[in-house]
């Protein structure tokens, strides 16, 4: 499993990577997961739904992440946008 974080001026960065079946690696993943949540990030797991449709699932704790998930993507939490100039 890979924990990725979107970053301005960079694109995504890999925060942690490991096998959830290995306790030590799972601990590292959990720690990195908590750090991001504490920093106010949202976490999403991209997945394939019924019928092959792609969607994402927002997770609030590592326990909610499916064990077979390949990636968890962290991104800044949503905020009501400020007005900008028209297109």
């Amino acid at each position, binding site marked *: 499993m890979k924990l990725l974080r979107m970053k301005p001026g960079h694109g995504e960065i890999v925060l942690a990577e490991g096998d959830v079946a290995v306790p030590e690696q799972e601990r590292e993943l959990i720690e990195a997961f908590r750090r991001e949540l504490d920093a106010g990030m949202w976490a999403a797991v991209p997945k394939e739904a019924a019928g092959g449709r792609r969607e994402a699932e927002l997770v609030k704790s590592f326990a909610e992440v499916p064990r077979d998930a390949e990636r968890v993507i962290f991104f800044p939490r949503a905020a009501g*946008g400020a007005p*900008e100039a028209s297109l």
Partner: protein
Amino acid sequence: MALALGTGAVVLVVLVWELMRPTLASALARGREIWSLRRRASAASGYDPGREHRAEQRARALLRSCIEDEDWAMYRDLGFLRVWGGLGEREPGARSAYAYLIYPHKPIVAFVPETGELLNEYCVAFPDHSKPFGSARLPHSDDVLAKWMALTADERRLIGEANMHLPGRQIEPDRVRRDLVRLARWERQRADRSKIGRQHGNVRAA
């Protein structure tokens, strides 16, 4: 006389120099400090088109790996994504009565696909307040992916976080209508290409 005048001039120059030296030295030091601060600030937050381009390329690759092929083609060709709304009653298997257009760093626009009527603009952003390179804005495709993930995962929550406005607040309604026409044309062309591809496949198979 000349000797006296020369000596007087030298003494005057030395006196003026001695009086000015501390002021000049401190002005020079202040100038150096300002210059160094400006250099550091520009290194930390300066716009680097190469870096922004690489960030966007990474973001596009991530977006592509998360969404369906057809959605990726839509974004690549048209510059926006359509996401079907998931709330409200509908027949099993039927498409939603409303959908959203996701633009990079612009509001999400809700519309009725059947009629093309624009419903609302949802202004939402994902600012990274740590500003790692001096900006809180994600690359364009990361912004689109963040909206897509939040919408497909928890539409109600994202819409609840957004500021809702009538159409036209930030995006010109004519622009959106033109994009809907482009989308319809793009879908027709893809359907035609796929039909032709199937026919050729059948001919070869026969």
